[in-house]
């Protein structure tokens, strides 16, 4: 009874915390509630949210993708080279960038499943390769990205931040159908209980590979959006996004042990991480104290996971 309630409670807590933080942020922002403030806020969080959604999908199937930041950097750099020129060229560029992300994800999935290397090691190594490729594409921060599209996606549509709509739309269009199909069901089943999924005759390998591919696609969305935001490509952004994506997943209530969690929770988690920073900035908190407070929030949120220990009566269960 308690486990799922507890998990739901954590997902709800993430959303509640986000609302409180956002309200606080808007209350103290010198310009108050305005489309411009909301749009800027949303733009800041959406790139991380995309990457974290990708990470969530892998974590739900009980894997982890430590290369996700590198895929984002690679796709960001690719975007800074390809997403420019005529509308047709821009469209081709966007498609190529997304394909690139998917290919990286497919490489991860195949290595994890076929070479049977632990996900943490495999993606650590592929992450180095992807970072190297990013450097080949764009040795130093630079390049350019189509400005029309950028203005459109980082602006607002009828008072609603376009980036938020983009996030909701892409998650709904890509993860929505997968989640609703057998494939997504299989990913959750594999993450929750691989043995039971096997006994039920589900295609386990396919589910795992697909999870990594999707992670690559979402990392590409993140890289693309960052390109629209900064109008350039930066090969060195990967590391912080990898770690923050894991943090957002956990904050959003998804268990690192797989099977349970939600993409919506993760999005809340990612936005929380970004909002804390903005909130503290406008609250006049010493900027030097900001990372400490951010870390403390994360540490406290994670420590809540220890509550389950109180219910264990057979100590052997602690080790499972």
């Amino acid at each position, binding site marked *: 009874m308690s486990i799922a309630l507890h998990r739901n409670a954590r997902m709800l807590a993430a959303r509640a915390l986000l609302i409180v933080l956002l309200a606080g942020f808007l209350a103290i922002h010198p310009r108050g509630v305005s489309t411009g403030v909301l749009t800027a806020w949303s733009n800041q969080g959406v790139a991380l949210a995309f990457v974290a959604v990708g990470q969530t999908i892998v974590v739900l199937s009980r894997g982890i993708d430590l290369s996700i930041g590198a895929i984002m950097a690679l796709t960001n750099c690719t975007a800074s080279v390809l997403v420019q020129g005529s509308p047709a060229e821009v469209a081709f560029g966007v498609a190529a960038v997304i394909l690139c992300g998917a290919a990286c994800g497919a490489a991860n999935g195949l290595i994890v499943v076929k070479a049977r290397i632990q996900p943490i090691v*495999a993606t650590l*190594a592929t992450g180095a*390769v992807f970072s190297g490729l990013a450097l080949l594409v764009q040795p130093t921060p630079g390049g350019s990205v189509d400005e029309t599209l950028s203005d459109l996606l980082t602006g607002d549509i009828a008072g609603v931040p376009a980036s938020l709509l983009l996030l909701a739309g892409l998650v709904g269009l890509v993860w929505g159908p997968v989640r609703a199909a057998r494939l997504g069901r299989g990913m959750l089943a594999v993450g929750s209980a691989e043995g039971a999924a096997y006994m039920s005759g589900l295609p386990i390998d396919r589910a795992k590979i697909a999870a990594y591919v999707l992670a690559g696609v979402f990392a590409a969305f993140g890289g693309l959006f960052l390109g629209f935001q900064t109008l350039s490509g930066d090969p060195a952004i990967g590391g912080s996004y990898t770690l923050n994506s894991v943090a957002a997943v956990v904050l959003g209530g998804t268990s690192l042990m797989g099977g349970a969690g939600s993409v919506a929770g993760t999005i809340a988690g990612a936005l929380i991480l970004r909002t804390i920073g903005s909130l503290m900035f406008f609250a006049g908190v010493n*900027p030097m104290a900001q*990372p*400490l407070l951010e*870390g403390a929030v994360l540490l406290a949120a994670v420590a809540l996971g220890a509550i389950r220990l109180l219910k264990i009566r057979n*100590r*052997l269960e602690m080790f499972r």
Partner: protein
Amino acid sequence: MNARSSPFARALVRDGPTRALVLVLAALLLVGGAVYNQFFSPTYLLQQLQSGAFLGIVAIGAMIVILTGHIDLSVPWTLSAAATFSTAFTALAGGAPWGEFGVLVGLAIGAGIGLVNGIGVAYLRIPSMIWTLAVNIVVLGICVFYAGLYASGSRPSAMMSVLGGGRSFGVIPNALLVWLVLSGGVVLLMRRTLMGRYLYAVGTREGAAYLSGIETRRVIAGAFVISGLCSATAGMLLAGYANQAYQNMGDPYLLPGIAAVVLGGTSILGGRGSYAGTVAGVLLITLITSMLSVMQIAEAYKQIAYGAVILAMVGYYSRRSATPG
């Protein structure tokens, strides 16, 4: 096989990964030597060992934690914090001899961070990947906050400079000697102490270790304390070598440290691995890095080569262990 022969020799015979690594190392040296004759010069090799020593010390801690089946992602800022605060303490002394106690401050910080890691992972049973990550961010926060409050000096104490950057007899880097001493210590720890034996037991299967009457939580917490101490030591030596503590000085050590351990054949799932393999892994990474530098290969190709080597070696180990015999 005589059990009293050196662990390294034992590992060479028994341990496939170490053997494979040593072969790769030898091949690399030969190829490198054939192309660039300075490869075999003692100066060049000692210089490699000097820079390898820092990574080697970090890898000791990484390996001990990985043996228990966990991972320590707080290495970067444990390393930086120890360097920052030990040098700040030295600055506080303003040249007085008690400034040398800065080293103790650094070690205490390393042990303290390790303890916090251990409590979260072993006692609160939070996945180490996320707990140590959060701890890393908090320590980063503390360092940034501190740096914002006090503009303190960051010059290393005399001892740090000598150990980190100095050379004995004018040739042998002292950092290498520190690494050797710590290596001796860790070999003793793993072979002769209860703690060392329990590391493998806990990493193989914590439930079985618990049923064998081992206080598994203390073992895991202890592993994190050792890792914290190793990171702190590396940080202070590095500060001594670079003659200052600086932000992000720990970043280049986290992933290579883990990679060295994994390349050395230690299972990321815990319970299996040899220290000799880790040493070989550190040497391999150091050598590849320096060879690629010598050949003036672009950073991009270095990264790709680095990832490819890990995939090839670990893929090879996993195939080997999958096929019987």
